Protein backbone atom coordinates (compact mmCIF):
# COMPACT_ATOMS: atom_id res chain seq x y z
CA UNK A 1 0.00 0.00 0.00
CA UNK A 2 2.76 2.36 1.05
CA UNK A 3 4.86 1.65 -2.06
CA UNK A 4 1.79 2.20 -4.27
CA UNK A 5 1.30 5.56 -2.61
CA UNK A 6 4.94 6.49 -3.24
CA UNK A 7 4.61 5.61 -6.93
CA UNK A 8 1.74 7.98 -7.51
CA UNK A 9 2.36 10.94 -5.19
CA UNK A 10 5.11 13.45 -4.52
CA UNK A 11 5.70 14.72 -1.03
CA UNK A 12 6.27 18.32 0.04
CA UNK A 13 4.98 20.18 -3.00
CA UNK A 14 2.12 21.40 -5.13
CA UNK A 15 -0.38 18.63 -6.05
CA UNK A 16 1.03 17.99 -9.50
CA UNK A 17 -1.32 16.70 -12.18
CA UNK A 18 -4.14 18.68 -10.67
CA UNK A 19 -5.08 20.57 -13.85
CA UNK A 20 -7.78 22.65 -12.21
CA UNK A 21 -5.50 23.87 -9.40
CA UNK A 22 -2.73 24.48 -11.93
CA UNK A 23 -5.06 26.49 -14.17
CA UNK A 24 -6.15 28.57 -11.16
CA UNK A 25 -2.56 29.16 -10.22
CA UNK A 26 -1.59 30.17 -13.76
CA UNK A 27 -4.59 32.50 -14.04
CA UNK A 28 -3.68 34.22 -10.78
CA UNK A 29 -0.04 34.51 -11.79
CA UNK A 30 -0.93 35.98 -15.19
CA UNK A 31 -3.03 38.71 -13.56
CA UNK A 32 -0.24 39.51 -11.12
CA UNK A 33 2.45 39.52 -13.83
CA UNK A 34 0.45 41.97 -15.92
CA UNK A 35 0.00 44.27 -12.95
CA UNK A 36 3.70 44.18 -12.10
CA UNK A 37 4.83 44.73 -15.71
CA UNK A 38 2.46 47.71 -15.92
CA UNK A 39 4.23 49.10 -12.84
CA UNK A 40 7.63 48.71 -14.58
CA UNK A 41 8.80 45.62 -12.68
CA UNK A 42 11.02 43.25 -14.69
CA UNK A 43 10.88 39.48 -14.26
CA UNK A 44 13.93 37.51 -13.05
CA UNK A 45 14.53 33.85 -12.20
CA UNK A 46 17.26 32.97 -9.69
CA UNK A 47 18.59 29.40 -9.33
CA UNK A 48 16.73 26.89 -7.18
CA UNK A 49 19.97 25.92 -5.40
CA UNK A 50 22.40 28.35 -3.83
CA UNK A 51 25.17 28.59 -1.26
CA UNK A 52 23.81 28.17 2.28
CA UNK A 53 25.13 31.54 3.51
CA UNK A 54 22.67 33.28 1.18
CA UNK A 55 19.79 32.16 3.36
CA UNK A 56 18.88 32.24 6.99
CA UNK A 57 18.96 28.75 8.49
CA UNK A 58 15.76 27.12 9.69
CA UNK A 59 14.99 23.86 11.42
CA UNK A 60 14.79 21.63 8.34
CA UNK A 61 17.46 23.57 6.43
CA UNK A 62 19.55 20.47 5.75
CA UNK A 63 16.62 18.27 4.66
CA UNK A 64 17.86 18.47 1.08
CA UNK A 65 21.24 19.58 -0.09
CA UNK A 66 23.76 18.54 -2.69
CA UNK A 67 27.39 19.07 -3.54
CA UNK A 68 28.48 20.27 -6.96
CA UNK A 69 31.53 19.12 -8.94
CA UNK A 70 33.65 21.81 -7.23
CA UNK A 71 32.77 20.35 -3.85
CA UNK A 72 30.54 23.29 -2.95
CA UNK A 73 27.53 22.61 -0.71
CA UNK A 74 24.29 23.85 -2.25
CA UNK A 75 20.91 24.11 -0.56
CA UNK A 76 17.34 24.60 -1.74
CA UNK A 77 16.43 28.29 -1.42
CA UNK A 78 14.30 29.17 1.59
CA UNK A 79 13.87 32.76 0.47
CA UNK A 80 14.00 34.61 -2.84
CA UNK A 81 14.72 38.17 -1.67
CA UNK A 82 18.30 37.49 -0.50
CA UNK A 83 19.01 35.71 -3.81
CA UNK A 84 17.56 38.48 -5.98
CA UNK A 85 19.48 41.17 -4.10
CA UNK A 86 22.65 39.08 -4.36
CA UNK A 87 22.10 38.77 -8.11
CA UNK A 88 21.45 42.47 -8.35
CA UNK A 89 24.66 43.26 -6.46
CA UNK A 90 26.60 41.08 -8.88
CA UNK A 91 24.96 42.86 -11.81
CA UNK A 92 25.79 46.20 -10.21
CA UNK A 93 29.47 45.29 -9.82
CA UNK A 94 29.85 44.24 -13.45
CA UNK A 95 27.58 46.72 -15.16
CA UNK A 96 28.73 49.97 -16.72
CA UNK A 97 25.18 51.20 -16.64
CA UNK A 98 24.59 53.78 -13.88
CA UNK A 99 21.74 52.25 -11.93
CA UNK A 100 19.88 54.28 -9.32
CA UNK A 101 16.57 52.50 -9.14
CA UNK A 102 15.42 49.08 -10.17
CA UNK A 103 12.29 47.01 -9.87
CA UNK A 104 12.23 43.20 -10.18
CA UNK A 105 9.59 40.53 -9.82
CA UNK A 106 9.79 36.75 -9.65
CA UNK A 107 7.42 33.78 -9.70
CA UNK A 108 9.00 30.67 -8.19
CA UNK A 109 8.90 28.06 -5.40
CA UNK A 110 10.83 28.47 -2.15
CA UNK A 111 11.36 25.68 0.38
CA UNK A 112 10.97 26.15 4.11
CA UNK A 113 9.27 24.97 7.32
CA UNK A 114 5.52 25.20 7.31
CA UNK A 115 5.21 26.15 10.98
CA UNK A 116 7.03 26.06 14.30
CA UNK A 117 5.02 23.17 15.78
CA UNK A 118 5.33 21.17 12.56
CA UNK A 119 8.86 21.64 11.24
CA UNK A 120 8.47 19.97 7.88
CA UNK A 121 9.93 21.36 4.69
CA UNK A 122 7.26 22.57 2.28
CA UNK A 123 7.39 23.87 -1.27
CA UNK A 124 5.80 27.32 -1.30
CA UNK A 125 4.98 28.84 -4.67
CA UNK A 126 5.38 32.58 -4.39
CA UNK A 127 5.31 35.81 -6.34
CA UNK A 128 7.49 38.65 -5.16
CA UNK A 129 8.42 42.20 -6.00
CA UNK A 130 11.68 43.95 -5.13
CA UNK A 131 12.15 47.69 -5.34
CA UNK A 132 15.82 48.73 -5.13
CA UNK A 133 17.26 52.21 -4.82
CA UNK A 134 14.17 54.14 -3.78
CA UNK A 135 13.91 55.59 -0.28
CA UNK A 136 11.72 53.35 1.93
CA UNK A 137 9.61 56.30 3.13
CA UNK A 138 8.83 57.15 -0.48
CA UNK A 139 8.48 53.60 -1.79
CA UNK A 140 6.46 52.05 1.05
CA UNK A 141 3.00 53.60 0.41
CA UNK A 142 3.20 52.67 -3.30
CA UNK A 143 4.46 49.19 -2.48
CA UNK A 144 1.67 48.43 0.01
CA UNK A 145 -0.89 49.89 -2.39
CA UNK A 146 0.44 47.60 -5.15
CA UNK A 147 0.40 44.58 -2.81
CA UNK A 148 -3.20 45.34 -1.85
CA UNK A 149 -4.25 45.74 -5.49
CA UNK A 150 -2.50 42.48 -6.36
CA UNK A 151 -4.26 40.50 -3.62
CA UNK A 152 -7.67 42.01 -4.38
CA UNK A 153 -7.42 41.40 -8.13
CA UNK A 154 -6.16 37.85 -7.64
CA UNK A 155 -8.69 36.56 -5.16
CA UNK A 156 -11.45 39.16 -5.28
CA UNK A 157 -11.77 39.34 -1.50
CA UNK A 158 -11.37 42.03 1.12
CA UNK A 159 -7.83 42.43 2.41
CA UNK A 160 -6.46 43.77 5.67
CA UNK A 161 -2.93 45.02 6.11
CA UNK A 162 -0.83 45.74 9.16
CA UNK A 163 2.36 47.80 9.26
CA UNK A 164 5.06 48.22 11.89
CA UNK A 165 8.71 49.07 12.24
CA UNK A 166 11.29 46.43 13.10
CA UNK A 167 13.51 49.09 14.74
CA UNK A 168 11.15 49.03 17.73
CA UNK A 169 11.96 45.35 18.19
CA UNK A 170 15.70 46.01 17.82
CA UNK A 171 15.51 48.63 20.55
CA UNK A 172 13.56 46.34 22.91
CA UNK A 173 15.96 43.43 22.26
CA UNK A 174 18.94 45.64 23.14
CA UNK A 175 17.17 46.91 26.25
CA UNK A 176 16.25 43.50 27.58
CA UNK A 177 19.21 41.40 26.31
CA UNK A 178 17.16 38.23 26.97
CA UNK A 179 17.50 35.69 24.19
CA UNK A 180 13.86 34.69 24.67
CA UNK A 181 12.45 38.17 24.09
CA UNK A 182 11.94 37.80 20.33
CA UNK A 183 10.00 34.54 20.72
CA UNK A 184 7.87 36.12 23.43
CA UNK A 185 7.09 39.06 21.15
CA UNK A 186 6.41 36.73 18.20
CA UNK A 187 3.81 35.00 20.38
CA UNK A 188 2.62 38.36 21.78
CA UNK A 189 3.02 36.70 25.15
CA UNK A 190 1.98 39.48 27.54
CA UNK A 191 2.36 37.40 30.78
CA UNK A 192 5.93 36.27 29.98
CA UNK A 193 7.05 39.71 28.78
CA UNK A 194 5.61 41.33 31.90
CA UNK A 195 7.45 38.80 34.07
CA UNK A 196 10.69 39.40 32.14
CA UNK A 197 10.44 43.17 32.61
CA UNK A 198 9.31 42.70 36.22
CA UNK A 199 12.69 41.04 36.80
CA UNK A 200 14.32 44.20 35.40
CA UNK A 201 12.62 46.22 38.15
CA UNK A 202 9.47 47.40 36.35
CA UNK A 203 6.20 47.84 38.21
CA UNK A 204 4.34 44.59 37.43
CA UNK A 205 0.84 46.00 36.98
CA UNK A 206 2.03 48.91 34.81
CA UNK A 207 4.32 46.77 32.67
CA UNK A 208 1.47 44.33 32.08
CA UNK A 209 -0.65 47.24 30.82
CA UNK A 210 2.23 48.53 28.71
CA UNK A 211 2.71 45.20 26.94
CA UNK A 212 -1.04 44.83 26.40
CA UNK A 213 -1.17 48.26 24.73
CA UNK A 214 1.96 47.46 22.70
CA UNK A 215 0.85 44.05 21.47
CA UNK A 216 -2.92 44.42 21.34
CA UNK A 217 -3.05 48.05 20.33
CA UNK A 218 -6.27 50.01 20.00
CA UNK A 219 -6.68 52.79 17.39
CA UNK A 220 -3.94 55.43 17.38
CA UNK A 221 -5.69 58.15 19.41
CA UNK A 222 -6.73 55.76 22.16
CA UNK A 223 -3.27 54.18 22.05
CA UNK A 224 -1.61 57.56 22.67
CA UNK A 225 -3.95 58.32 25.55
CA UNK A 226 -3.33 55.00 27.26
CA UNK A 227 0.41 55.07 26.54
CA UNK A 228 0.70 58.50 28.19
CA UNK A 229 -1.40 57.34 31.14
CA UNK A 230 0.90 54.36 31.78
CA UNK A 231 3.97 56.60 31.39
CA UNK A 232 2.58 59.08 33.93
CA UNK A 233 2.14 56.28 36.48
CA UNK A 234 5.78 55.18 36.27
CA UNK A 235 8.07 56.56 38.96
CA UNK A 236 11.29 55.39 37.39
CA UNK A 237 12.79 57.94 34.94
CA UNK A 238 14.65 55.22 33.00
CA UNK A 239 11.40 53.35 32.42
CA UNK A 240 9.75 56.57 31.22
CA UNK A 241 12.72 57.11 28.88
CA UNK A 242 12.17 53.60 27.48
CA UNK A 243 8.55 54.46 26.69
CA UNK A 244 9.57 57.80 25.16
CA UNK A 245 12.04 56.04 22.87
CA UNK A 246 9.35 53.59 21.69
CA UNK A 247 7.13 56.59 20.94
CA UNK A 248 9.94 58.30 19.00
CA UNK A 249 10.70 55.15 16.98
CA UNK A 250 7.00 54.71 16.19
CA UNK A 251 6.49 58.19 14.73
CA UNK A 252 7.76 57.47 11.15
CA UNK A 253 5.64 54.34 10.72
CA UNK A 254 2.57 56.13 12.07
CA UNK A 255 3.05 58.71 9.30
CA UNK A 256 3.53 56.02 6.64
CA UNK A 257 0.42 54.27 7.95
CA UNK A 258 -1.60 57.47 7.51
CA UNK A 259 -0.21 57.91 3.93
CA UNK A 260 -1.19 54.35 3.01
CA UNK A 261 -4.64 54.68 4.56
CA UNK A 262 -5.23 57.77 2.38
CA UNK A 263 -4.73 55.54 -0.66
CA UNK A 264 -7.75 53.48 0.40
CA UNK A 265 -5.89 50.47 1.81
CA UNK A 266 -7.50 48.82 4.84
CA UNK A 267 -4.46 49.01 7.10
CA UNK A 268 -3.70 49.32 10.78
CA UNK A 269 -0.55 50.30 12.57
CA UNK A 270 1.07 47.79 14.90
CA UNK A 271 3.44 49.22 17.54
CA UNK A 272 5.41 45.99 17.55
CA UNK A 273 5.67 43.72 14.56
CA UNK A 274 8.27 40.97 14.29
CA UNK A 275 9.66 38.97 11.41
CA UNK A 276 11.62 35.71 11.56
CA UNK A 277 13.97 36.76 8.76
CA UNK A 278 16.82 38.90 10.08
CA UNK A 279 17.53 41.21 7.14
CA UNK A 280 14.65 43.68 7.66
CA UNK A 281 15.85 47.10 8.78
CA UNK A 282 12.76 49.34 8.96
CA UNK A 283 9.10 49.18 8.00
CA UNK A 284 7.51 45.74 7.73
CA UNK A 285 3.99 44.85 6.67
CA UNK A 286 1.67 41.86 6.32
CA UNK A 287 -1.45 41.31 4.24
CA UNK A 288 -4.31 39.15 5.52
CA UNK A 289 -7.35 37.81 3.72
CA UNK A 290 -10.52 36.30 5.08
CA UNK A 291 -10.31 32.50 5.14
CA UNK A 292 -6.59 32.24 5.88
CA UNK A 293 -5.28 32.22 9.44
CA UNK A 294 -1.74 33.25 8.47
CA UNK A 295 -0.69 36.24 6.38
CA UNK A 296 -0.13 35.16 2.75
CA UNK A 297 1.70 38.42 1.99
CA UNK A 298 4.72 39.76 3.86
CA UNK A 299 7.13 42.53 3.04
CA UNK A 300 9.26 45.36 4.28
CA UNK A 301 12.48 47.27 3.82
CA UNK A 302 16.00 45.79 3.89
CA UNK A 303 18.41 48.65 3.45
CA UNK A 304 21.61 46.73 4.31
CA UNK A 305 21.14 43.79 1.95
CA UNK A 306 22.65 45.33 -1.22
CA UNK A 307 25.67 46.50 0.81
CA UNK A 308 26.16 42.96 2.10
CA UNK A 309 26.98 41.75 -1.40
CA UNK A 310 28.38 44.84 -3.13
CA UNK A 311 30.59 47.84 -2.47
CA UNK A 312 27.61 50.12 -2.98
CA UNK A 313 24.94 50.67 -0.36
CA UNK A 314 21.43 50.94 -1.74
CA UNK A 315 18.06 50.95 -0.04
CA UNK A 316 15.63 48.17 -0.94
CA UNK A 317 12.13 47.03 -0.10
CA UNK A 318 9.66 44.49 -1.40
CA UNK A 319 7.13 41.78 -0.62
CA UNK A 320 6.28 38.17 -1.38
CA UNK A 321 2.85 36.62 -1.83
CA UNK A 322 2.35 32.94 -1.01
CA UNK A 323 0.33 31.59 -3.94
CA UNK A 324 0.16 28.07 -2.47
CA UNK A 325 -2.06 29.31 0.34
CA UNK A 326 -4.19 31.50 -1.95
CA UNK A 327 -5.21 28.54 -4.12
CA UNK A 328 -6.68 26.94 -0.99
CA UNK A 329 -9.28 29.71 -0.80
Amino acid at each position, binding site marked *: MHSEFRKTRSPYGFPFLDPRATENLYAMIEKIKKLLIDENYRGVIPGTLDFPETFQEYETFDAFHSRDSHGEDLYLRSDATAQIIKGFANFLEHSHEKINEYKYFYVLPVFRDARKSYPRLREIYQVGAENIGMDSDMAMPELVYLADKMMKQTIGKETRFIIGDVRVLHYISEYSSSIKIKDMILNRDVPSLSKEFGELGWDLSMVNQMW*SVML*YAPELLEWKERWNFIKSKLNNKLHQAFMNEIERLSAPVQKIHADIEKKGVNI*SWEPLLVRNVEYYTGFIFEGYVEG*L*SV*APLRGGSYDNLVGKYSRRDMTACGFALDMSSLILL
Partner: protein
Amino acid sequence: MKPPKGASLRIALPKGRMSEESIAYLHSRKLSSFSEFPSNRKLIFNDPEKNIEYVLVRSKDVATYVEHGSCDFGIIGYDLLVEGQYDVFIPAELPFGKCSLCTAYSEQHKDWQSKKNIRVATKYPKLASKYFFDQGFNFQIIELYGSIEIAPLTGIADVIVDLVSTGQTLQENNLVQGPKIMESSARLILNPGSYFLKRDLVQSFLNKLSIE
Protein backbone atom coordinates in the same frame (compact mmCIF):
# COMPACT_ATOMS: atom_id res chain seq x y z
CA MET B 1 -10.66 47.76 10.86
CA LYS B 2 -14.13 46.34 10.57
CA PRO B 3 -14.69 42.59 11.15
CA PRO B 4 -16.36 40.63 8.36
CA LYS B 5 -20.16 40.88 8.43
CA GLY B 6 -21.84 38.42 10.78
CA ALA B 7 -18.54 37.32 12.26
CA SER B 8 -18.58 35.81 15.73
CA LEU B 9 -15.97 34.32 17.98
CA ARG B 10 -15.31 30.64 18.51
CA ILE B 11 -13.45 29.55 21.65
CA ALA B 12 -11.76 26.18 22.22
CA LEU B 13 -11.83 24.92 25.80
CA PRO B 14 -10.21 21.78 27.22
CA LYS B 15 -12.68 19.14 28.35
CA GLY B 16 -12.73 18.55 32.09
CA ARG B 17 -12.06 20.75 35.09
CA MET B 18 -10.46 23.59 33.16
CA SER B 19 -13.53 24.00 30.92
CA GLU B 20 -15.68 24.41 34.06
CA GLU B 21 -13.27 26.95 35.53
CA SER B 22 -13.02 28.74 32.17
CA ILE B 23 -16.74 29.12 31.60
CA ALA B 24 -17.28 30.27 35.20
CA TYR B 25 -14.52 32.85 34.77
CA LEU B 26 -15.87 34.09 31.42
CA HIS B 27 -19.33 34.35 32.99
CA SER B 28 -17.86 36.44 35.84
CA ARG B 29 -16.38 38.79 33.21
CA LYS B 30 -19.80 39.02 31.48
CA LEU B 31 -18.44 37.27 28.40
CA SER B 32 -20.66 34.23 28.69
CA SER B 33 -24.41 33.99 29.33
CA PHE B 34 -24.04 30.74 31.24
CA SER B 35 -21.76 29.86 34.13
CA GLU B 36 -21.59 26.13 33.43
CA PHE B 37 -22.04 23.78 30.50
CA PRO B 38 -25.13 21.53 30.41
CA SER B 39 -24.31 18.00 31.54
CA ASN B 40 -24.74 16.21 28.23
CA ARG B 41 -22.34 14.82 25.67
CA LYS B 42 -22.48 17.79 23.31
CA LEU B 43 -19.11 19.21 22.42
CA ILE B 44 -20.23 22.46 20.76
CA PHE B 45 -22.22 25.07 22.66
CA ASN B 46 -23.58 28.26 21.20
CA ASP B 47 -24.10 31.42 23.20
CA PRO B 48 -26.26 33.49 20.81
CA GLU B 49 -26.61 36.35 23.27
CA LYS B 50 -22.85 36.96 23.33
CA ASN B 51 -22.29 35.75 19.76
CA ILE B 52 -19.75 33.18 20.95
CA GLU B 53 -19.47 29.48 20.17
CA TYR B 54 -17.63 27.15 22.54
CA VAL B 55 -15.90 23.99 21.37
CA LEU B 56 -14.84 21.36 23.92
CA VAL B 57 -11.74 19.45 22.83
CA ARG B 58 -8.89 17.44 24.37
CA SER B 59 -6.55 19.74 26.28
CA LYS B 60 -3.63 18.89 23.97
CA ASP B 61 -5.74 19.84 20.94
CA VAL B 62 -6.82 23.31 22.09
CA ALA B 63 -3.74 25.08 20.69
CA THR B 64 -3.98 23.13 17.42
CA TYR B 65 -7.55 24.33 16.87
CA VAL B 66 -6.46 27.91 17.54
CA GLU B 67 -3.22 27.71 15.54
CA HIS B 68 -5.04 26.52 12.44
CA GLY B 69 -7.68 29.22 12.78
CA SER B 70 -10.61 26.89 13.39
CA CYS B 71 -11.09 28.68 16.73
CA ASP B 72 -10.29 32.33 17.44
CA PHE B 73 -9.48 31.97 21.13
CA GLY B 74 -8.55 29.06 23.36
CA ILE B 75 -7.79 28.43 27.01
CA ILE B 76 -4.91 26.09 27.75
CA GLY B 77 -2.34 25.32 30.45
CA TYR B 78 1.00 27.08 30.01
CA ASP B 79 2.78 23.70 30.30
CA LEU B 80 1.10 22.39 27.13
CA LEU B 81 1.76 25.65 25.33
CA VAL B 82 5.50 25.52 26.02
CA GLU B 83 5.66 21.82 25.22
CA GLY B 84 3.89 22.21 21.86
CA GLN B 85 5.57 25.45 20.60
CA TYR B 86 2.52 26.74 18.74
CA ASP B 87 2.22 29.77 16.47
CA VAL B 88 -0.44 31.50 18.57
CA PHE B 89 -0.67 34.78 20.45
CA ILE B 90 -0.85 34.76 24.26
CA PRO B 91 -2.71 37.88 25.43
CA ALA B 92 -3.18 36.95 29.08
CA GLU B 93 -2.63 34.72 32.06
CA LEU B 94 -5.91 33.63 33.69
CA PRO B 95 -6.39 33.21 37.43
CA PHE B 96 -6.98 29.45 37.53
CA GLY B 97 -5.37 26.15 36.54
CA LYS B 98 -2.37 26.82 38.78
CA CYS B 99 -0.01 23.86 39.13
CA SER B 100 3.66 22.88 38.76
CA LEU B 101 5.48 20.57 36.41
CA CYS B 102 7.56 18.47 38.78
CA THR B 103 9.73 15.43 38.92
CA ALA B 104 8.54 12.63 41.21
CA TYR B 105 9.90 9.23 42.24
CA SER B 106 9.06 6.25 44.41
CA GLU B 107 10.92 5.41 47.63
CA GLN B 108 12.61 2.47 45.92
CA HIS B 109 14.08 4.85 43.29
CA LYS B 110 15.09 7.62 45.72
CA ASP B 111 18.74 7.39 44.57
CA TRP B 112 17.77 8.12 40.94
CA GLN B 113 19.90 11.30 40.87
CA SER B 114 23.07 9.26 41.39
CA LYS B 115 22.34 6.80 38.58
CA LYS B 116 24.38 6.89 35.38
CA ASN B 117 21.37 6.45 33.16
CA ILE B 118 17.85 7.30 34.15
CA ARG B 119 14.50 6.49 32.56
CA VAL B 120 11.97 9.31 32.64
CA ALA B 121 8.26 8.68 32.04
CA THR B 122 6.25 11.72 31.01
CA LYS B 123 3.56 13.31 28.87
CA TYR B 124 5.97 16.21 28.31
CA PRO B 125 8.92 14.80 26.34
CA LYS B 126 10.30 18.16 25.16
CA LEU B 127 10.18 19.94 28.51
CA ALA B 128 11.51 16.87 30.35
CA SER B 129 14.35 16.42 27.81
CA LYS B 130 15.38 20.05 28.15
CA TYR B 131 15.35 19.85 31.94
CA PHE B 132 17.37 16.62 32.24
CA PHE B 133 19.78 17.70 29.49
CA ASP B 134 20.40 21.04 31.24
CA GLN B 135 20.95 19.16 34.52
CA GLY B 136 23.57 16.98 32.84
CA PHE B 137 21.81 13.61 33.13
CA ASN B 138 22.06 10.71 30.72
CA PHE B 139 18.43 9.91 30.25
CA GLN B 140 15.88 8.05 28.23
CA ILE B 141 12.42 9.54 27.76
CA ILE B 142 9.48 7.13 27.91
CA GLU B 143 6.46 8.93 26.53
CA LEU B 144 3.18 7.93 28.16
CA TYR B 145 -0.28 9.38 27.65
CA GLY B 146 -1.84 8.90 31.09
CA SER B 147 -1.52 7.36 34.57
CA ILE B 148 2.10 8.52 34.69
CA GLU B 149 2.16 7.97 38.49
CA ILE B 150 2.29 4.21 38.12
CA ALA B 151 5.42 4.27 35.92
CA PRO B 152 7.99 4.08 38.79
CA LEU B 153 5.84 1.53 40.64
CA THR B 154 5.70 -0.81 37.65
CA GLY B 155 9.43 -0.43 36.99
CA ILE B 156 9.12 1.17 33.54
CA ALA B 157 10.86 4.36 34.76
CA ASP B 158 13.04 5.66 37.59
CA VAL B 159 11.44 9.06 37.72
CA ILE B 160 8.39 10.80 36.27
CA VAL B 161 7.69 14.34 35.12
CA ASP B 162 4.07 15.36 35.58
CA LEU B 163 1.78 18.15 36.69
CA VAL B 164 1.24 18.49 40.42
CA SER B 165 -1.39 20.75 41.87
CA THR B 166 -2.12 19.56 45.44
CA GLY B 167 0.25 16.59 45.54
CA GLN B 168 -2.54 14.26 46.66
CA THR B 169 -2.27 11.91 43.66
CA LEU B 170 1.47 11.55 44.24
CA GLN B 171 0.91 10.72 47.93
CA GLU B 172 -1.81 8.20 47.16
CA ASN B 173 0.57 6.41 44.79
CA ASN B 174 3.46 6.51 47.28
CA LEU B 175 5.53 8.95 45.24
CA VAL B 176 7.80 11.69 46.51
CA GLN B 177 7.82 15.08 44.82
CA GLY B 178 11.26 16.03 43.44
CA PRO B 179 12.63 19.25 41.90
CA LYS B 180 10.16 21.60 40.22
CA ILE B 181 10.66 22.24 36.46
CA MET B 182 8.18 25.05 35.88
CA GLU B 183 5.05 26.70 37.22
CA SER B 184 1.95 26.68 35.08
CA SER B 185 -1.49 28.28 34.97
CA ALA B 186 -4.19 28.86 32.38
CA ARG B 187 -3.42 31.10 29.41
CA LEU B 188 -5.76 32.74 26.94
CA ILE B 189 -4.48 32.10 23.41
CA LEU B 190 -5.48 33.78 20.17
CA ASN B 191 -5.14 32.95 16.50
CA PRO B 192 -2.95 35.62 14.82
CA GLY B 193 -5.23 35.78 11.76
CA SER B 194 -8.31 36.30 13.95
CA TYR B 195 -6.57 39.14 15.72
CA PHE B 196 -6.00 41.00 12.48
CA LEU B 197 -9.20 40.01 10.66
CA LYS B 198 -11.69 40.33 13.54
CA ARG B 199 -9.87 43.13 15.30
CA ASP B 200 -12.88 44.94 16.78
CA LEU B 201 -14.46 41.76 18.14
CA VAL B 202 -11.17 40.58 19.59
CA GLN B 203 -10.37 43.98 21.14
CA SER B 204 -13.80 44.14 22.71
CA PHE B 205 -13.37 40.61 24.14
CA LEU B 206 -9.96 41.52 25.57
CA ASN B 207 -11.30 44.76 27.02
CA LYS B 208 -14.02 42.88 28.87
CA LEU B 209 -11.43 40.54 30.30
CA SER B 210 -9.65 43.70 31.56
CA ILE B 211 -6.53 42.51 29.90
CA GLU B 212 -5.73 45.75 28.25
